[in-house]
């Protein structure tokens, strides 16, 4: 499930230290290295994707995000990015907390489960949604912690995480005016820029 990087690059300062959790084949890190001259590091599990990153000249460490980020120091990065991975994490709450310990800011994107398409599939037809953003059947899916804009903001509140920006896009990274006006119903992808007072 890849989503266009959308507005993310705008939120990264020049020369920032960036950690990308679940960096995949390193598209975003490579883009940020070119456009923002970042010092980037990716974490990824799949060796084939790691090889692709290495060919691109990126630095990638194989690490399971479910084991947390305890091997990183506090405030080691300016920004920690995690795109479309939060819903596959065993404990999204503890990882979010850890992300904002290691990074000054975090950018998180995830599929909005309250999107109207999902509501119709579940609410009217009575089936767990299966669509381009959530392509797996319920019994075999990495997406074990689906949430909504509203759910996520409630969690941020509970963890005392401050939301700097909220954005929404469709799968190809474009914004729709409906999604902007009413994200919880019409936003396909939730995009958040977060920070936390230490």
């Amino acid at each position: 499930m890849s989503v266009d990087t959308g507005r993310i690059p705008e939120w990264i300062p020049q020369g920032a230290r960036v950690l990308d959790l679940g960096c995949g084949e390193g598209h975003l890190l490579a883009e940020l290295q070119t456009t923002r001259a970042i010092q980037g590091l990716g974490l990824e599990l799949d060796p084939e994707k790691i090889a692709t990153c290495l060919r691109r000249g990126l630095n990638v460490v194989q690490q399971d995000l479910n084991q947390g980020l305890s091997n990183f120091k506090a405030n080691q990065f300016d920004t920690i990015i995690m795109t479309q991975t939060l819903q596959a994490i065993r404990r999204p709450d503890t990882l979010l907390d850890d992300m904002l310990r290691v990074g000054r800011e975090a950018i998180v994107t995830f599929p909005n489960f309250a999107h109207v398409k999902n509501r119709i599939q579940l609410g009217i037809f009575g089936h767990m949604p299966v669509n381009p953003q959530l392509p797996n059947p319920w019994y075999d899916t990495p997406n074990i912690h689906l949430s909504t804009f509203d759910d996520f903001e409630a969690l941020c509140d509970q963890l005392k995480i401050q939301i700097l920006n909220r954005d929404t896009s469709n799968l190809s990274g474009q914004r729709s005016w409906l999604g902007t006006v009413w994200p919880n119903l019409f936003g396909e992808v939730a995009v958040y820029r977060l920070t936390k007072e230490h």
Partner: protein
Amino acid sequence: MTDSLGVVTPFSIAFEKPLTLERGGTLPRYELMVETYGTLNADKSNAVLVCHALSGDHHAAGFHTDQDDKPGWWDHYIGPNKPIDTNRFFVVSLNNLGGCSGSTGPLTDNPETGAPYGPDFPEVTVSDWVESQARLADHLGIDRFAAIVGGSLGGMQAMQWAITYPERIGACVMIAAAPRLTAQNIAFNEVARQAIMRDPNFFDGHYAAHDVIPASGVGLARMVGHITYLSDIAMGEKFGRQTPRSDRDAEGANFAVEQYLRYQGQQFSHRFDANSYILMTRALDYFDPTDNERIPLAEVLRQTQCRFLVLSFTTDWRFSPARSEEIVNALIHAERPVSYTRLESTHGHDAFLIADPTYESIFKAFMDRVSDDVGATDER
């Protein structure tokens, strides 16, 4: 074969400038046995140094004769189009000081006495090897290696290079290595040394004067070592509880694994010098860039300037993935550029020598990028 270097020829280089050693003592002169593969480019930017492990030597790839049935020890990974691509890189491989494959070591005549050094060969360390390798680079006109690569003890040399000569190394590849040995690692080395020293033919290392070799002790040392290089799974797959092979001397062995270890031990005892083995294991034991934790590893590595690739293997228990991850995490703390993969393998520590598609793909991806960065083009 298009992916083999074919026949390669080792050569010896003499160094007449005395080398002062870390643990005391001086070598007034010494020789290093070397092999090189590929072509050094005009700006001398495409050199890769390959460092060998405990019982390795300069013969890392290719064959010594047309009739040779065994290539060099890392032939899977060095050659045309291989991860260390000899179409792009100029590869330097040497037998370390204190070795027994042609470089100055216990078998060499001591110029002061005219007799072989034997047990009186001074103790050498990983730092001494790095120093001798730096002089070798000077001799070859190489100011800076595009990469320095090694597995196991070879990885420790690569790490020491990055620490000692940060400006002379572009990339450091450490495979199945450790930042320093644990008590268990040292214990296995000590059993190996004791096996040699307790052989009645050892004569305190002066076996040459008695015209014998402590073959039984060296063989036993190798048997212990070999067990630690393999995994339980690998041994299970290879031997299980099978009875000895009938086409080889079983020497009263009850199981195939006994026969195999005896065979390996025996072969090794005629190939490797006992004093060299003791010296090499001591260099391994003493390697500790943290100086007994006086300086945290991250602090030591902060002065490095190169990119790092660290690789480990899931079933390696001699230098387990956790040991590689100590290096990785220290590099992360030091904010140095590092990449790391824990490769799936059933082969234990030996996995670093064995062909594997994922290992090859990761290693090649990194090395291709290194060659691009130094402008090393395909010379075919």
